[in-house]
């Protein structure tokens, strides 16, 4: 089992091939390329994982609501899209993007409803994009799948990667 910490969030990864903190000092190109928080390797795929924590108790209340409002308006889509694409490019250049990749985004805000998460999941699919151009000239997708979660839905879907707050 590997434990990773991102701010106030602690996540355990059980039964995985490997886990890397991707946006740390080892990245080396943070001045020009965005990066997801973690890359998890499974036998048949990679998981690119991005955590956002607007409810971090060390954060400021007004920023918290502003972040959530902006997220619901789609203002985070640009950032999420480029974090994924730059991470993919980085891994491709490193010779590691050799399996299908799923992109998982956790927005740790308990006020988000599943209707909102579903809506942002659809938006992220359009932005990355999940599907190639009409006529299907792409021979492989740039992302195999993606989804947006809050802590409850994440823990419901990924029982082997449980997330919890350190402060709770």
């Amino acid at each position, binding site marked *: 089992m590997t434990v990773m910490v991102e701010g106030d969030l602690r996540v355990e990864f059980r039964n995985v091939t490997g886990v890397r903190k991707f946006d740390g000092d080892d990245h080396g190109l943070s001045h020009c390329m965005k990066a997801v928080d973690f890359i998890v390797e499974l036998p048949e795929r990679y998981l690119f994982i991005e955590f956002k924590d607007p409810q971090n108790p060390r954060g400021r209340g007004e920023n918290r609501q502003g972040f959530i409002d902006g997220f619901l308006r789609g203002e985070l889509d640009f950032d999420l899209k480029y974090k994924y694409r730059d991470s993919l490019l980085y891994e491709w250049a490193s010779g590691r993007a050799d399996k299908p990749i799923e992109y998982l985004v956790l927005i740790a805000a308990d006020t988000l409803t599943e209707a909102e998460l*579903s809506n942002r999941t659809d938006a992220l*699919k359009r932005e990355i994009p999940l599907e190639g151009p009409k006529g299907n000239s792409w021979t492989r997708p740039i992302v195999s799948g993606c989804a947006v979660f809050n802590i409850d839905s994440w823990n419901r879907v990924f029982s*082997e990667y449980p997330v919890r707050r350190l402060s709770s």
Partner: protein
Amino acid sequence: MALTRVTLEDFTVFDCLDLELSPGINALVGANGTGKTHLMKVCYAACDISRTRSRFAAKLIEDFLPSDRFFGKLVNRAKGDEGSGKATAQVFRDEMEVNVSFSPESHSGRSARERGMRDWTKAPVESVYIPVKEMLANAPGFRSLYARRDIHFEGVYEDILDRAYLPPLRGPLNPPMKCLLAKLEEAMGGEVTTKDEEFFLSTKQGAFEFTLLAEGLRKLGLLWLLIQNGALSDGSILFWDEPETNLNPKLYGVLMDVLLELQRNGVQVFFATHDYVILKELDLRKTSDDQVAFHSLYRTEEGGIACDTADSYLGIHPNAIAEAFSNIYDREIERSLKGISQ
């Protein structure tokens, strides 16, 4: 004076309901068949008789339209022999109360027992019930047809046309109501005019018959008329069954702004909805000074109807609309991640 409480015993789908009401906005949510419309119709009938002085039973028969106009059919049929044998509906305005109780054998409603009418009618309240089906486009001739023939339409359809045909108020509207009219005019692209019982939307491009308009615009037009003629004003009560029907979701925000503003100007509002965006728009647009209650009607394991009240969208429990979205979300995740979920 606003309605403060309603209790229903063995009435239609209800076995025992006691609901405290908000003096502001009351949003009713729940699956089909949990009594949202019934609840509003009872409250509306109580309001209407305060002004018309009709019998409570007669108005309930008119608005519920039980088969053969047999009043006793409004007794909860699911209870069978377990029920109390009679139905009771009580509506309160603070200490003031009007109630009716009747048995399954009560035919015309004359044998129904009514109490509280004397005091209730001393303080008449203006009320408006907007039914699901839009009526303005089919208004010409409907009222005379309804008066002269036994056509199978609930009384609320005639009533809403009566309210819509009221002439404009004498004198200027107060500034908040004028602002509301302007907001609706902007959304509709014009204002409503009437000629020989026919409604038109008058725009810069000309006057368009309501039959040519999108039904969603007709709904906004109806709201405009009711504000302009004072049917919706300080102290009145609005009941609206599924305001979202045939309205583009982009206009939901305007609609919720109008309802919130009516509430701020002394109109008590009830609406029943199945729509997530309507509820979220209300939740996001209300301020801490607004009085909003979300009433969730649901069927209990025993088969009865219960109600849970919350002051925010997230507090609604159970939430049939959110459950539907949860189901969609779960299936979306399953499809998006092609089986990696554990």
